[in-house]
């Protein structure tokens, strides 16, 4: 019983440490929208505090007395009887170590082209804030800003000739002419990766064929309004394409 309680305390401490560690290393950006970072931090500290208090309680309790806290009235008599003494069963402990195991032993990696296969891709995103996008200078806009601007525009032709400077990863599927076009893609995450939606702009370039899927590139060029699969949409005609490292924050936050 005490072993399990020790284990419980250790698990909470480690989970708290893990949360804080992902925050400090910035890996948290692979998992959730940055505006919830404070919440994850709070959770990390809460877990550390709870773990520490449990350790203190364990240390201050005399050996062998596992049912009541010293000096305190037994407040959970029934709970102990029914729910196994308020100490989680082994399978519960195992379950709660799963996030730790996955987080620590698997390399942290953001969603990439492979994830699009089962979450789909959007050419236009009817997200809010479309008008805001217009107040950003064209070359300062990111993929999300452009997609927003396209969606909220009433006249798609206005984008013809506008310059763009974008970073994203390369994605292709059967709809794309492999030698001449690809989608410059980013994931948008509004809450956490569960709701990740891939968005992108179509890029046409003679260099397109040489770019590996999932590689991060920076594309500079101009938009032209063209047909893609029977739909008129702005397409980025690349003037230069260079390989870049994955950005620290791989997702965009709407």
């Amino acid at each position: 019983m005490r072993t399990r309680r020790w284990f419980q305390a250790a698990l909470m401490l480690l989970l708290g440490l893990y949360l804080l560690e992902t925050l400090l290393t910035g890996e948290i950006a692979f998992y959730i929208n940055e505006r919830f970072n404070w919440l994850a931090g709070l959770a990390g500290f809460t877990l550390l505090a709870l773990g520490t208090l449990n350790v203190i309680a364990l240390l201050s309790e005399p050996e062998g007395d596992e049912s009541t806290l010293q000096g305190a009235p037994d407040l959970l008599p029934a709970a102990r009887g029914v729910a196994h003494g308020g100490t989680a069963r082994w399978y519960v402990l195992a379950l709660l170590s799963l996030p730790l195991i996955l987080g620590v032993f698997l390399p942290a990696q953001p969603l990439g082209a492979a994830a699009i296969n089962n979450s789909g891709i959007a050419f236009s995103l009817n997200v809010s804030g479309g008008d805001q996008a217009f107040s950003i200078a064209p070359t300062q806009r990111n993929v999300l800003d452009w997609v927003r601007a396209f969606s909220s525009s009433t006249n798609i032709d206005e984008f013809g000739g506008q310059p763009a400077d974008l970073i994203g990863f390369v994605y292709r599927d059967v709809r794309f002419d492999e030698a001449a076009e690809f989608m410059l893609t980013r994931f948008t995450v509004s809450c956490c990766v569960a709701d990740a939606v891939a968005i992108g702009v179509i890029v046409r370039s003679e260099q397109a064929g040489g770019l590996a899927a999932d590689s991060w590139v920076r594309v500079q060029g101009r938009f032209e309004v063209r047909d893609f699969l029977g739909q008129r949409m702005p397409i980025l005609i690349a003037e230069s394409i260079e390989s870049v490292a994955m950005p620290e924050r791989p997702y965009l936050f709407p």
Partner: protein
Amino acid sequence: MAQKRSLNWIGYTYSRFDRLDLGVGLTILALLGAILLTLLRGDHVGISVRRFLPQGLASSQTVIQIAFDEPLDPRSVEGKLSLTPEAAGALSVVGNQLEWRPNSPLQQGQVYTVRLEAGVRAQSGRLLLEAHAWQFRVRAPQVVFMAPVDQPVQNLFLIDPNQPDAQPQQLTFSELGVLSYDVLPDGSRIVYSELGELRTAHLRLYDLRTNSALTLLECRTAACTTPAWRPDGNVVAFERSELNLDTGAGPGAPRIWLVDVNTGISRPLFADNQRLGYSPRWSPDGAILASYDANVGGIVLFDFENNRERLIRTPQGEVGQFSPDGRWLFFPKIIQLAGTTRYVAHFVLVDVQSELLVQRDLIPDSDPNNDVELAWLPDSRRLIATRRPPEITTMQGAQLHLIDLETGAATPLVTDSDYSSGQVAVSPSGEQLAFQRFALGQSGARPQIWFYDLNTSELRLLVNNATLPRWLP
């Protein structure tokens, strides 16, 4: 307490299913019933029309397009679209868009009512619940031209030739100038070559349905000129000359390229980059592209259906036009009149549908007339020739004649020795001409665009200081 007891009583009676279970069960049944009822009541919203064209004024060759919010079931649209007054056309469905093309030009000046009956079905099974109807008016064919001639920068303009006091309307506002253009046969779009910086030239599209221009192809290191529409409007052929800006070697020779209008992807016609070519001309069915190849000294006919090339040897370096029925292609030849020192130009007709490319002369070699230009009438049986008669010197003006294809017989149409005529454009109906005239012997004269009606013989000045007239259906 009484309530409590009754509750217990119920709990006792329904020991396995208490009041809550009963309530939940009944609610679930009620909800399922309500869902079923809603489904049985059927759809009261249906699919809806997102966009439809044309609106307002339209060309007589206009395509009617109706886009829905969902992909359509092609079988469901048959017989659903009607025009008032009636007009025959072909209906097709691509994705969520329905398209209707008239079999013959719509009547000019007529207001048409388009009506799409309810019952058009989406692939999901949803129906169009209310008929969709709207009107548009068919405008008369217009004349497009380039002006002003006496300025370094020319732009595209439009004028209504049938309104005597019509004012030209400027279509493009290019800063460096428009070099050449072509009008799509359905009258919906114009492709033109626009001069850019460093002598580059780009291809742009002017859409008359939306009155907006957009870039079709940006040629940053080359001049892309002489665009020619494939008649279905999906591909443009053009001449591309590399400017060799980085080596300073100066502009190279032109090559024929193709650009897909829908994707903007361009490619050379021939994979071999040593193949030169210019003057692209499409056959009316879009299957053959003719162009002149100076290296082989002839007109190359490239057949897209079997990727086969055929050659018509001619040293003149000019490619004429396909006849509207697709059978003939003409090109000029220079001959010396027997027994004289005079050289004249005659036209040769090639039967492109014959395996051996059988050639015939339009007029016998003995004919002393000098034919400068030729233009087809829509019936493919008659042509308008710009001809210099034998009795005047070559310095004097060329005049318009109507030539019969079979007999070669010529009827003078517009003959005025004070003027030289050329650049004849025949209206879609074949009843009217727009052409360029230049007053000879007048200082300060500019090329003018004139209008001629074959039925009434009405001859009228359309616009001064302009060139390259083309009809916009």
